[in-house]
């Protein structure tokens, strides 16, 4: 079985039953208190926005009035909490950026533009607190009986999730479907990060920071680090979902096998794997449990110290097994241990400190001035012909 066959099987099942098949048993995005559904298109050279929020009717405006419309729905950097953008087209955010660029500095429209800038930044962070591109989120949660290409079309999801309203208000209904059920783990951590980032954006806006300027070296570096941390955390959150794990067996991210404890002082266990395509290598820290990939059981932790193919089977040696270790002959499931949010924060703090030190021309972005040293003549002679 490959992941492609697994996907095809789910797709055939959905086509047969007429009901979308779940890829996750958890909600992939967090429910948010302040969703704003938006569509945007160009009217000549101006951007027209159609938007609504719970308790507000659908409205449409063009050009500067569109910023006012968004402000009336709470899209302003001065709001007490951020709005969540719901959209069903990848063109929406670029068009909102174009709209935001029309705002003059220091105006009420600029406050809305700054909130749009926050969306532009946070759209790269998973978890759904800032921006939800609904077709992407739907594809993460379900599979339909249509061809994969059809799932990029919002109409497919409205049809399969029984959302009759094809206007922006229908996005609010779709969002409710997406956020139903228990959240994936770590979504609260990601939401906290979004909230912290909104506060930071508010402070920067108050201090006169101009979001229109390209990122400085340090801001870009920290932005990348934060994005990678969020992506790594989200990837780990997905592995906490039993349905996701059932598929991940076929991509080598989740490994199942039969345990054979060695009973030595190093607390080693050999795991004879059911498949050969494990992504785990010597040095990998792993989390595991007794049972199948879809089971929930108390976890053990270990380190992979050897990986060998014996008689056509991959055998992983797990060392330092701590927690409820599997007994001989028991089935066990393992995957790479995910990142710790605490350690991620410590890493970002360390990164920020290096960039804040201002002792380096690289961290400040300033062009350096050489400080010369005398070079021995033999080095001068030997290096003279370098290009």
């Amino acid at each position, binding site marked *: 079985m*490959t992941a*492609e066959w697994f996907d095809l099987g789910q797709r055939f099942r959905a086509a047969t039953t007429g009901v979308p098949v779940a890829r996750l048993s958890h909600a992939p995005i967090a429910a948010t208190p302040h969703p704003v559904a938006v569509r945007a298109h160009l009217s000549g050279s101006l951007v027209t926005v159609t938007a609504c929020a719970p308790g507000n009717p659908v409205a449409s405006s063009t050009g500067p009035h569109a910023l006012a419309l968004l402000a009336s729905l709470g899209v302003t950097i001065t709001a007490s909490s951020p709005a969540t953008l719901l959209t069903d087209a990848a063109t929406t955010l670029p068009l909102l950026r174009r709209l935001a660029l029309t705002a003059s500095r220091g105006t009420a429209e600029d406050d809305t533009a700054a909130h749009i800038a926050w969306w532009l*930044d946070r*759209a*790269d962070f998973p978890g759904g607190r800032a921006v939800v591109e609904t077709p992407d989120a739907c594809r993460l949660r379900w599979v339909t009986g249509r061809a994969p290409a059809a799932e990029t079309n919002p109409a497919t999801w409205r049809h399969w999730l029984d959302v009759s309203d094809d206007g922006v208000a229908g996005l609010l209904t779709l969002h409710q479907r997406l956020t139903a059920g228990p959240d994936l783990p770590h979504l609260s951590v990601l939401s906290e990060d979004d909230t912290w980032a909104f506060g930071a954006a508010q402070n920067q806006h108050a201090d006169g920071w101009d979001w229109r300027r*390209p*990122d400085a*070296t*340090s801001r*870009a*570096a920290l*932005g*990348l*680090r*934060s*994005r*990678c941390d*969020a*992506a*790594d955390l989200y*990837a780990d959150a997905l592995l906490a979902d039993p349905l996701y794990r059932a598929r991940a067996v076929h991509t*080598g991210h989740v490994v199942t096998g039969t345990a054979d404890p060695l009973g030595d002082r190093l607390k080693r266990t050999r795991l004879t794997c059911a*498949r*050969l*395509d494990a992504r785990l*290598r010597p*040095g990998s820290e792993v989390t595991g449990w007794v049972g199948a990939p879809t089971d929930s059981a108390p976890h053990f932790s270990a380190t992979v110290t050897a990986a*060998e*193919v*014996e008689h*056509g089977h991959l055998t992983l040696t797990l060392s330092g097994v701590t927690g409820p270790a599997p007994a001989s002959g028991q089935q066990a499931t393992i995957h790479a241990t995910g990142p710790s949010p605490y350690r991620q924060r410590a*890493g970002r703090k*360390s*990164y920020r400190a*290096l960039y804040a*030190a201002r002792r*380096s*021309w*690289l*961290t400040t*972005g300033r*062009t*350096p*001035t*050489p*400080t*010369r*040293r005398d*070079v021995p*003549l*033999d*080095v*001068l*002679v*030997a*290096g*003279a*012909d*370098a*290009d």
Partner: protein
Amino acid sequence: MRTIPTGTLAQPPTSPSLPPAPAKPSWTAAPIMDDPATAGVLHSAWSGDPAVVVPSPPGAGKTRLVALLAATLAGRADLRVGVAAQTRDQAAELARRLGALACPARLMWPAKHPEPDLSAGSATVVKGRAIRFPNSGGGVLIATTARWIFADPATIGCDVMIVDEAWQATYADLGALGAFAPQIVCVGDPGQIDPVVTGQTRRWADSPTGPHLPAPAALLAAHGDAVSVVTLRHTWRLGPATTALVQPAFYPSLPFTSRRPPEHLSDRHGNALPEVTHQSLNVSAGPGDLALTGTCADLARHLLTATLTTVEGTRPMTPADLAVVAAHVTQAAAVRALLADLPDVLVGTANQLQGMERPAAVVLHPLAGYRDPNAFGTDPGRACVMLSRHRAHLSVVTDAATAGVLAGPDPNLATRTHRTLLAALAAAPTLS
């Protein structure tokens, strides 16, 4: 960007005569002076250039250069030298090389991981409070980039930071490393796989100085006038045929030539095998098609019947002389299973085998089995790594449909590169 000027020995107007010929250098890292390019790197770093970038083709001796440079700057110039590697294995290998040069380098290593074997050299592993430079004179501290970034520049700041495999480091990480030293030396291969970045990068998609970009590329874009560039122009690994295949496709702005001593494989009848061969297959079951992985395994076994001739003589090929490189973990796993009776054959993905070398390699073309020119399969860095692991012989397994897959309208640069590459491979002989 500037290059190291030639003619820096112009006679000063007040000097009555040329200085006496310099004495033959005698320190253990003296071989850095044997080549003008490596000596140019040393001159540039020693004289205080804030940034030196050393683009290098595969097999040009990057690790050797890093070791010689660090040892010389610490031993002769009394500088504190930091070395940032991209993996623990690379860091340990650098420590071994420095130890072999009698350089008392110190390797920062995680306390809970088993210490690497540094052989009998003078390098040592340091942990915890022992992580520091010598109290006086120069010294070398080695660690992964990730480890450096968790360190405190106030306690282990250095004069020069040498970044090994710098094209695998992001510009963001280079900036963080910059907090440790006023001088940076970036050594690496611009043709190989870009840094692994898990987060979204579209915010900087149009920026030549984006934080996700390979560090030297962004450094040159940001501070080109302040960066000295010394190019290594010879590969000691790749033979002439492979150089002719790889250089135009992946290094259009880095011309290099082969200086590999003569090496070849011979079949059981004593006939020399071509340096590059290919085998085209009809594939119907995608990248996991057993025809692909089975052919790779068969070719590997076939090559083990050959003999290897080098300047040291002729001997039978052994499993440890051979690598099989695939694009996907699943493909590599399938080949590994098919070759389970030959555990010494190195089987892995391009990412896993980056930086490794074997006398012969079997490569499964990254687009084999695909029916669309996807970004993963057409990544030039991945193909470049796969096609540059061998010294004497390369066999490439291709999918007969790939040429059609690449023939679509509006090809991007990666697709055009693969078209050129595939045409060159198609012209290579088939291994009989």
